[in-house]
């Protein structure tokens, strides 16, 4: 296994080595120069507080802290960062929006800003500036970022959720590479189970891994929650097909997935209990770091989600938008901070320090070295380009956010796979909830 120098550096995990582009005084000088020329001058005496999702990779957080320090030194704006588990950012943001006080900036999940679009500061100027400078936004970022004609948030990054699988076990089952079509994937799962090397997808309320796979399953078979005018179309033969597909797949999974949260499949994969699952790059990173798991790190790889009968990729990857609330006293400082975060000299080292966990959504960052440092990182680089948006064909607003937060699609699949409801019953429950959400 080739060990690239940069990969060793990244493996070292410290922000200092990963942020190899500019560090220390050089970064400060650049940041000061940026502050002089940036179109957004922070207000006098500005102080910001930001609530962000808790890091998945320590080195990413270290790099982020350094980035913030550079911003503070350059502009004199002190930024207070607090971290919450990523599922808890949304309730806190909702309460802050409701009460009109709280952190100035929220960095959350999916279409969080669309839950209260009128409480978000207009970010159109920042988005246009960044789009022009860095090769344009990927289409899904534009959909997520805009509400009507203006941008209400800045999509900072995506978290790719791809297939993780064991190479040797797959070869033994007769698959030298991971199947790229959904029918072949069913055969793969059956063959793996026959070999006593099953896999698993979460059917509990796992907001990342669970939602990722059920939406892929639904969309790849042609099903959709709503059409493009937000009319509920979940009750369709395609949805039934998707449910049958999932149930067949469920038979090849390890027992217990109905109680899985987002961490359960990580634990199971690293213990060798499962051989295929969906996850970010965190399993691979954890395996590389732990000397006792080196064998797993070498024996595993990542793959794109198989393509269904619909003929094109239908993946759902997490997106992390950052937004400023209208109750903030320092909107210009907020804009300056968000623009600063996405400037190449900051963003590149920060993405590298995340070791592949986070993906960019501005096209110029395709060239970031993390995607070529290790061939196993490659598929994650495409996450932003391949993803569909929450809500599928429909609007990406409050309704889509509610549907995901209420686990409507996930529960529909769980109900049928565990046998609690039949096909009609599962779809009926989901349809009723969706009709209420989308009325």
């Amino acid at each position: 296994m080739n060990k690239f120098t940069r990969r060793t550096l990244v493996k070292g995990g410290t922000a200092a080595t990963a942020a190899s582009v500019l560090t220390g005084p050089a970064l400060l000088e650049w940041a000061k120069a940026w502050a002089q020329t940036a179109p957004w001058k922070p207000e006098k005496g500005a102080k910001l507080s930001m609530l962000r999702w808790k890091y998945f990779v320590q080195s990413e957080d270290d790099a982020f802290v350094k980035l913030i320090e550079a911003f503070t030194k350059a502009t004199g704006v002190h930024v207070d960062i607090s971290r919450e588990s990523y599922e808890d950012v949304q309730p806190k943001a909702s309460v802050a929006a409701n009460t009109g006080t709280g952190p100035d900036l929220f960095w959350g999940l999916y279409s969080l800003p669309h839950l209260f679009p009128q409480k978000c500061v207009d970010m159109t100027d920042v988005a246009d500036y960044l789009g022009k400078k860095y090769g344009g936004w990927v289409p899904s970022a534009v959909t997520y970022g805009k509400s009507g004609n203006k941008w209400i948030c800045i999509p900072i990054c995506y978290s790719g959720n791809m297939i993780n699988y064991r190479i040797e076990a797959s070869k033994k089952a007769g698959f030298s590479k991971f199947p790229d079509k959904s029918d072949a994937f069913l055969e793969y799962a059956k063959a793996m189970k026959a070999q006593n090397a099953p896999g698993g997808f979460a059917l509990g309320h796992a907001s990342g891994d669970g939602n990722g796979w059920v939406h892929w399953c639904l969309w790849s078979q042609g099903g959709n929650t709503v059409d493009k005018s937000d009319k509920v179309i979940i009750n369709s033969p395609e949805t039934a097909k998707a449910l049958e597909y999932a149930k067949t797949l469920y038979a090849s999974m390890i027992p217990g997935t109905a109680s899985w949260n987002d961490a359960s499949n990580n634990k199971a994969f690293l213990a060798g209990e499962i051989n295929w699952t969906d996850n970010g790059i965190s399993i691979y990173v954890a395996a590389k770091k732990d000397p006792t798991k080196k064998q797993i790190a070498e024996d595993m790889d990542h793959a794109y989600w198989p393509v269904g009968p619909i003929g094109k990729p239908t993946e759902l990857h997490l997106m992390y938008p950052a937004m400023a609330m209208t109750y903030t006293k320092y909107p210009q400082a907020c804009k300056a901070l968000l623009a600063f975060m996405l400037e190449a000299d900051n963003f590149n080292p920060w993405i590298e320090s995340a070791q592949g966990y986070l993906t960019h959504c501005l096209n110029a960052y395709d060239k970031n070295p993390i995607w070529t440092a290790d061939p196993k990182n490659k598929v994650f680089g495409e996450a932003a380009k391949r993803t569909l948006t929450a809500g599928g064909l429909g609007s990406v607003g409050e309704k889509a956010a509610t549907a995901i937060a209420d686990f409507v699609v996930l529960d529909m699949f769980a109900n049928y796979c565990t046998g609690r409801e039949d096909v009609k019953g599962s779809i009926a429950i989901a349809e009723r909830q969706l009709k209420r959400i989308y009325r």
Partner: protein
Amino acid sequence: MTDVTLNGLKPSPRTVTAWDRLKTNRSWLSFWFMLPAAAFLILFLAYPLGLGVWLSFTDARLGRGGVFVGIENYEFLWEDTTFWLSVFNTILYTTVASTIKFAVGLYLALLLNERLPFKAIIRAVVLIPFIVPTVLSAIAFWWLFDPQFSIISWSLKKMGLITANIDFLGDVWNARWSVIFANIWRGVPFVAITLLAGLQTVSPSLYEAATIDGATNWQRFRYITYPLLTPIIAVVMTFSVLFTFTDFQLIWVMTRGGPVNATHLMATFSYQRAIMSGYLGEGAAISTAMIPFLLGAILVSWFGLQRRKWQQGESND
């Protein structure tokens, strides 16, 4: 000496004004003394309760206010299978857990009432499950019941009693029994220690008299211990049922209401709808729907268990 004042006049009796009467009126004074406590209760209990009930009649979302919509939330919930599932789960959870907690707690209290070596230490140890923060014990149970890494499954496999891991929290009924077990483990000490306190108030002379009359252990329990304990039982079971019915932490940490909503209690379901999905009005309606059940439980306890005349201080019939 006759009473002569300085200017030779007798002092006239002071007229009692209305203000004087008010100043010394007990009701008036007690109102002002109660006010701080009342303000506290109104602000932190009555106001949230009232606001919750009001919210249940609006379509408030998290992030914006709502308008009055009458009983629309309740109508929606009436047809919602998940809501009725949560009601069923809550009633099942409460009845099974409370019954077992009462039985085990009473038995434990009777045991601890005997003369034992190291009584104080044993009583302290028995109380530990109740004192440990619920979230911590819930996390510990979550590990114990893990589908892949449970120590219980591992031990049973090592002993050769089972061949595959037990799916504690992924199977619908296994999950229910698992959370009920965790709740019982946590709640027994409360019942046990309170009943023990009650047992200590029973006068030993009654037992002596019964023993002299030839009563068996069971008869002593049935005719002396149990009747005298009923007021305490009423209190402790009211609290126990109330806490169990509104349990949130244990369920949320262990299963988040899963699998497929099989362990969703009304409290956790209300949180999911109100805060996670943002339907504040609907969540408030689910919480408000708990009130009739709780009132019923309290009424049963207080009236059903306190009817004996001699307990109210009158003579026997």
